């Protein structure tokens, strides 16, 4: 199952790209995807980030829907 992952700010800097498709097992959780991403980009282990799925903040137990838009969000700095 494919999901689209967006990286922002310092995370895009660490991965070297803003957007990437990931293949995950059917009914994979956010946590599972997070682990795959950290395996590929160990530099992200030191960074604080939260995860949004389809533009909603979620916790890691959520099961990813197909074609989910997943965003890795570093600390907010608006204002």
């Amino acid at each position, binding site marked *: 199952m494919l999901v689209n992952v967006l990286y*922002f700010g310092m995370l895009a800097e660490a991965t070297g790209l803003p957007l990437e498709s990931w293949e995950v097992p059917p009914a994979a959780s956010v946590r599972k995807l997070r682990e795959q991403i950290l395996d590929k980009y160990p530099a992200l282990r030191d960074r604080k980030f939260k995860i949004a799925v389809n533009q909603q903040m979620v916790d890691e137990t959520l099961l990813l829907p197909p074609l989910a838009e997943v965003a890795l*969000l570093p600390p907010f700095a*608006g204002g």
Partner: protein
Amino acid sequence: MIHKPKKVFVDGPISPQFIADSIAKHQSKTTIGAHNIFLGQIRADEKAGGTVTGIEYTAYTDMAEQAFHDIREAAFARFKLTCMHIYHSLGLVPTGEISLFVFVSSPHRRATFEALEFIVEEIKAKVPIFGKELVGQAGDYTWKENK
């Protein structure tokens, strides 16, 4: 009441003239007795690598626009406001310039004080906007984090 989604993001700094024009537009709304305005301005903070010269803002724009819309709706529901406007910069905002402009109006002052503080705190906490603080002249930078 449904409030139509409004454009929040502007390219680069928000000018004092833009703020004046926004105030002037409210003079025909004669139920308003109190306006309250918050402006965020870029500080020349001292960092290890030198002085901050500006902040380069990026955002997860689709989600950010939805978050701004939700904050607007929540503020209209909680406080008796006549008008509310929020503008935030994207791209480079140099030190001394304005990157956030929140403007609330009401018949009476109490609602404006409470609403303005609520909105600013919500923006800082919930809107996915990211800031790269440019430091010194050698191209250094740090990533800003709201407290």
